[in-house]
């Protein structure tokens, strides 16, 4: 495993990006930080700047105005990075699929590694999703 990936999997720092969501997914992500779920014990930390992040958590239905910014932010994140789409909106635009302001699903713009369905997904689901992603990356690199 390359040293970069190894360091990334040890304690993935997470940046959260909302692209036109209803707030619920974002709040469930914040919920993961609080005492009941406490993802910090796995070394995960929500960071304030994209330049410190290893994992990008995307929520929301990809609205016209924010998608441009999201693309720019994705270009700024240090690679290799992992991208997780949280919530039905980020997967397929969910309820807002026919909206004039949500033209394309997020994964047409940014490559997504893991999809976590649910509207909103429970914090348990978000944690399980991120853990699965880490497992997957670890296994795929070990084989080589």
């Amino acid at each position, binding site marked *: 495993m390359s040293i970069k990936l190894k360091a990334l999997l040890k304690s993935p720092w997470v940046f959260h990006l909302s692209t036109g969501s*209803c*707030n*619920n*997914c*974002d709040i469930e992500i914040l919920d993961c930080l609080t005492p009941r779920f406490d993802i910090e014990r796995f070394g995960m930390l929500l960071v304030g700047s*994209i330049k410190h992040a290893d994992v990008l958590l995307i929520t929301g239905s990809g609205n016209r105005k924010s998608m441009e910014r999201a693309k720019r932010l994705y270009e700024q994140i240090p690679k290799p990075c992992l991208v997780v789409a949280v919530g039905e909106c980020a997967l397929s635009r969910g309820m807002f699929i026919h909206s004039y302001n949500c033209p394309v699903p997020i994964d047409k713009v940014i490559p997504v590694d893991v999809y976590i369905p649910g509207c909103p997904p429970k914090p348990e689901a978000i944690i399980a999703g991120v853990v699965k992603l880490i497992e997957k990356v670890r296994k795929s690199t070990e084989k080589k």
Partner: protein
Amino acid sequence: MEKTIIPIGPYHPLQEEPEFFLLTVEGEKVVDIDVHIGYNHRGIEKLSETKTFDQSTFLIERICGICSTSHPFAYTRAVEDIIPIEVPERAKYIRTIIAEGERIHSHLLWLGLAGHFLGYNTVYMWAWKLREEILDVMEILTGNRNNYAMFKPGGVRRDIKSEDIPVVIKKIDSIVSTLEMLKKAVIDDPVLHARTKGIGILSKEDAINYCALGPTARASGVARDLRKDSPYGAYDKVEWDMIVTHNGDVFDKVVVRVLETFESIKIIKNCLLNLPGGEIDANIKDIPPGEGIGFIEAPRGECFHYVKSDGTNRPVRHKVRAPTFMNLPTYKATVIGEDISDATIILAAIDPCYCCTERMTVCNTKRKKIYNGKDLIKLSREKTEILRNKMGVK
């Protein structure tokens, strides 16, 4: 002194939603503020016209995840206003219980975030830990942590089982004792006093002039609460007090919200103990042509919905006015003249919810003309005329 512009956002660690603030500062003092939103706009009012009245309830719920009861509540009241129809008594009580549960979780959520903005993460962790208990209660009652899907025009979708009531009451009682502790820790804390007292003052006149709503107005001494002024649901049948304070600073907004959670607990308990029997749904068949309005007191203030029906199964117009839409302009009165370091907490003090507030306006700029139906018909006739003349057709 030289003016500097500080851009904050749209993706910043301050709030979980994207929004863009432009602070103009002179040294440490904020002299002007501008807010740009639109990063959350999803065109819900337009989408609502493509869905049936029943389907719309689920869409409306997703306007905002925190007020996922207030919006459907106001919407269903608007639809019931078109017919007009009276909701069964039991449904009214259940609606009240869910709405108050949401108020508790919303206020605790805000309290936690406010602590976080002040750099006081202990409050953040405490409040959110307590909030989990409320979410558990909501999960018992509705089957969901958020987005409860309890509302439908004419009643509620799901009944409260009688065997759940003692469990919920026990849980709520245990919350009260923890909440008491949190209240003492927050309201008597000298650090919080130093950071929030006398900061971001919204005077009573300003609150009235800017049409501030909800806790933002009540903290400035404007005793307005729809639950008292124009009772709906079961609010006129249970005992509770309106919380009003008079200073209008950030601290008072904290106090109003913390004390309101106690009132909400009182209301929930009263409603659960006096839950009447009977139907939970009025079984609406057809919705006649007409207009209806629905308004309720959301955690952040008055939430207003307008629905117009033409007799089909879809609304022809649906208008939403969320409380933050009215509270947002109070920034002009509160932030200007304060330090930058205090600006964050003042911006957060109204409990802003941008995804409720997002709307789109088509502006008529100089270059582009905006055509309405009449203009288009006129244009089309003119063009036909030109074509006719060209081809020599009479």
